[in-house]
């Protein structure tokens, strides 16, 4: 028996690893078909039989003896969830529902812990998933409640409330098993003091050549003291200018053409994006070269917060702005959309949807859970803006979100550009819809891009080689 359990744990662990590895790929909302299908159905059915016996005994709950919901989430309590739960408890005091926030670390082990608790059938009433692969695994394993009935009963229209386009990838055969609650919008993070000093206004839209020119103007100094106009983050992600800039014209499936049958690496926008990185590094010297990034392990956090560059393509590092302990600073941070290709229509913006809230089907307090889920997704999430999370729900008042977002950093964030780039809805997101051999193709392009940036191959040569190798791989 014990051995069986050990084996189950090992298997679950392996699956966890696989799911985490899958998740590392990107932020684009994409529901994967069958992560770990076989093993999941097993564990799901087992858990169901276990839960059936004990459940449904104390459903309902009166005002004297409030129902206590256990809500599992992966955001540290102090970054908003505690404030959110406190608000809920205050609001639902008289309705006989109280909630408790249980923090799990959102890594392999933490997710495994959540899943084993879910399988055991008690201890979790509602929970957050942060990764599509984990989510689909939980849906397939029967660990997430079908919300259709509850939605119909209460007239809670998920597509209407959260935006059909945003939530469509979380619909499994017409059924919602979760409510995505958060959206991200990404952009360039700018050191406003440097822009002011150079007399450059914060851009609200710009092309590659405008971006390149501004970066050149902001570059000054020599050697270790040099301040760069921009940092392109090529050690961590050499594909930045494609994935974050070029994607605005090409959309989420920028690597493919013909529906995934061939690569798109010689598209003019891809060439332009590669050329931009090459020129800024090797012609203008306005961005640290790729070799410097690699040999010095340069990161967006360090480069930006230590004022070694005026711009980084990583608005998600905004959390550092409030972390004055690790990054003592007094400059103002502003934001701008990513630059777009000079000669192409650019309808998409970089962004994604996340924080998927689900109900444990084995919870004895489904109705109370549903109350919580409705409340959280339409108002309870607001305090989480303190930690940088923007509510997806369309009916939420932006001003309240802004207030939480800026709290404790009022003097360090530029209000206008932060609101425009990070908070207010700005356009359609570039969603990924296909991914045949995505990791391999990414690695091929990475190698060729490395050769381009290091001067081994010209932009055209490198990308032509990438296209040839990629197509060979896809044809296999």
């Amino acid at each position: 028996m014990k051995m069986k359990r050990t084996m189950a744990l090992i298997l679950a662990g392996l699956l966890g690893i696989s799911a985490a590895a899958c998740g590392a790929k990107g932020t684009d909302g994409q529901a994967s078909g069958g992560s770990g299908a076989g093993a999941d159905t097993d564990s799901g059915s087992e858990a169901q039989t276990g839960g059936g016996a004990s459940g449904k005994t104390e459903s309902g709950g009166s005002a004297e003896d409030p129902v206590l919901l256990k809500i599992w989430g992966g955001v540290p309590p102090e970054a908003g969830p505690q404030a959110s739960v406190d608000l809920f408890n205050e609001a639902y005091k008289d309705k006989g529902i109280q909630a408790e926030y249980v923090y799990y670390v959102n890594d392999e082990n933490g997710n495994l812990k959540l899943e084993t608790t879910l399988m055991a059938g008690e201890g979790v009433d509602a929970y957050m998933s942060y990764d599509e692969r984990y989510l689909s695994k939980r849906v397939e394993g029967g660990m997430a409640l079908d919300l259709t009935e509850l939605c119909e009963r209460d007239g809670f229209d998920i597509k209407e409330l959260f935006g059909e386009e945003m939530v469509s990838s979380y619909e499994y055969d017409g059924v919602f098993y979760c409510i995505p609650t958060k959206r991200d919008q990404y952009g360039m993070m700018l050191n406003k003091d440097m822009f002011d000093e150079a007399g450059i206004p914060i851009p609200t839209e710009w092309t590659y050549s405008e971006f390149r020119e501004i970066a050149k103007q902001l570059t000054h100094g020599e050697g270790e003291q040099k301040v760069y106009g921009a940092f392109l983050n090529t050690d961590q992600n050499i594909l930045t200018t494609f994935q974050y800039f070029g994607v605005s014209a090409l959309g989420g499936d920028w690597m493919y053409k013909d529906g995934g049958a061939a690569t798109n690496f010689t598209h003019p926008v891809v060439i332009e994006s590669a050329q931009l990185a090459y020129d800024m590094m090797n012609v203008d010297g306005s961005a640290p070269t790729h070799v410097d990034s690699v040999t010095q392990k340069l990161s967006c956090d360090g480069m930006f917060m230590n004022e070694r560059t005026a711009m980084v393509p990583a608005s998600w590092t905004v959390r550092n702005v409030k972390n004055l302990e690790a990054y003592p600073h007094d400059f103002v941070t502003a934001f701008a959309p990513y630059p777009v290709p000079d000669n192409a229509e650019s309808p998409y913006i970089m962004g994604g949807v996340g924080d998927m809230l689900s109900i444990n089907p084995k919870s004895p307090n489904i109705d109370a859970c549903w109350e919580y889920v409705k409340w959280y997704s339409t108002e309870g999430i607001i305090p989480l803006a303190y930690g940088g999370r923007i509510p997806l729900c369309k009916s939420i008042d932006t001003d309240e979100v802004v207030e939480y977002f800026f709290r404790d950093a009022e003097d360090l964030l530029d209000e206008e550009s932060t609101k425009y780039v990070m908070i207010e809805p700005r356009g359609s997101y570039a969603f990924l819809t296909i991914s045949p051999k995505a990791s391999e193709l990414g690695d091929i392009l990475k190698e060729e891009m490395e050769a381009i940036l290091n001067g081994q191959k010209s932009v055209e040569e490198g990308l032509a080689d990438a296209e040839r190798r990629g197509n060979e791989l896809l044809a296999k």
Partner: protein
Amino acid sequence: MSAKKLRQLKTDITGYLFILPNILGMVLFTLVPMIFSLIISFTDWNFVKGFGSWEWIGIENYLEMWQDEWFLSALRNTVILAFVCVPVTIALALVIAVAVERFAYAKLPIRLAMFMPYISNVVAVTIVWVMMYSPWGPFTQMVKMFGVKNPPQWLGDYTWALPAVILMMIWANVGYCVMIYTSAIQGLPGDVYEAARMDGAGEICQFFRLTVPFLSPTTFFLVITLFINVFQIFAQVQIMTKGGPGTSTNVMVYYIYKSAFNYYNMGYAAAMSWILFAILFVITIIQWRGQKRWVSY
């Protein structure tokens, strides 16, 4: 069954019970995964598709890798790495061990210092080396001192990245080899050396004619273990270069890891692991056969 047989059986069972925990651990964590990896190496198992959803594809995995440029580069780099790293490390260790034994004061601190890299955390040590190879690090500065205008970029350079990794591997392993050699040197027969000196053999002559042959069993042991060790280099590459630039530091275990956990081709990764095993097995066999010519006990 006679009483004697029964007693024998009882003793046997007691014995087996004692080794049971160990056997169990080995079966569970070594034997089962090994057999499992051999089985899946003949399938096209994709990690994401879950357990059991695979097709038998015979030896296709084993054939495919010889057309895979990533595998071939990994194989080439690993072989270069091993065949440079092992001889240099051992030669260096032998010289250092003898020199420290014969000529150094404060032998213990020196040996301890040399052994430190071997017992230090690989990740921490590697990160220190990354800094040393950075443009502000000692290597670049040293090269600049000799008047080179464009010093190599070490880990960012197609030509120099692999030598940089090799240098670090030598540094990491040499202390261990010195330690093993030192213990062997301390057991050398003093009278033979005395006799050699009486016959007029100098230090150099003694080293090549006596010390080297006397230590050959130790050398043999080190060669085999080092080869196995170096062929399995992974963490250093993962941290320092991620196989780059291009494929210049792509090594076998790193590519196996990537195939399995980035590309989810478990079957293919398993097949490459078995090829790695085969290579190590052949190298070890050759050395066992060859030892008769140069190892004297």
